[in-house]
């Protein structure tokens, strides 16, 4: 019986140590999490202040330029398609335009 009690104490100690280790793990994680959030807040605030001063906005400018350049490329493509359509005038329309010109150039 004494032996069992002795083992019981040792096992309880093992559990206590596990609880302590668990608390440490959670506390470390919490500490790390707090540091991460604090750092993120600090960086965000610094970026905001720098942006107000006009610094550190290059990334936004580059991103906006890339976005606008893609849009511009699409706009140009649309105009080029329209231009191609304009160049390929139908024969009927071409002849009608000629008739208008000749009607005005030649006296009635």
């Amino acid at each position, binding site marked *: 019986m004494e032996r*069992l009690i002795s083992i019981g104490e040792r096992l309880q100690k093992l559990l206590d140590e596990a609880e302590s280790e668990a608390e440490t793990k959670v506390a470390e994680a919490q500490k790390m999490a707090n540091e991460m959030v604090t750092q993120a807040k600090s960086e965000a605030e610094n970026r905001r202040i720098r942006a107000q001063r006009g610094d550190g906005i290059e990334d936004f400018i580059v991103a906006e330029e890339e976005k606008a350049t893609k849009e511009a490329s699409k706009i140009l493509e649309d105009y080029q398609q329209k231009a191609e359509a304009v160049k390929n005038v139908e024969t009927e329309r071409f002849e009608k335009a000629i008739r208008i010109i000749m009607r005005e*150039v030649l006296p009635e």
Partner: protein
Amino acid sequence: MTPDSMDLEARLIDRTVDRRNEIITEAEKRAETILKAAEGECKRISEDSDRQILNVVSSELRAVRDRIIGNAELEGRKILMQAREEAISSVFKEAENQLWRIAEGKNEAVNYAEVMSKLVTEAAKAMGGDVFIVSANERDLQQLKKVLSDLNDKIKEILGGGVIRLDERPTAIMGGVIIRNEDETKIYHNTLEGRLRKVRSGFEAEVATALGVI
């Protein structure tokens, strides 16, 4: 030690080790959850920050966008305008070719002698006066000589008087006439190329509409 007590001891150890492992695993899971939540929070903070910065720099970004899109719109409209201009020019070029064929008498569907007669009377009517000196190219001068008498009769009929004289020096024009009065204070260009130019400046919109390029 009895076998029963040894078994009891072994089960106690097993249960305790299992519990210990559970405690550590739970703690690791909680730690992982905490770190994941922190990562999420950091991401949210960063996104909020991006939004705030975007608000701050929105006018600059708008300027960047307006510059790039504006240039593309400008370039695009230029390309389209050039294409329209090419289409319109090709029609006027073809009209010019047809006028050359008419002036050279190669288009049987058009009575060029009648066209010339109308060009002369139209110009004389617009100028008014008594004497009309008519310049034309060599080919048209020969034609006008043949119908000069008829033309004079027509002028008298329309204006109640007046005389047409031909300038014997040929002019380098496609067709039609240039008429001046005797003291050269009035001059009226009624050439085919001149009329074509006038049509181009006055009827380009109508031509563009007919072409479907407006």
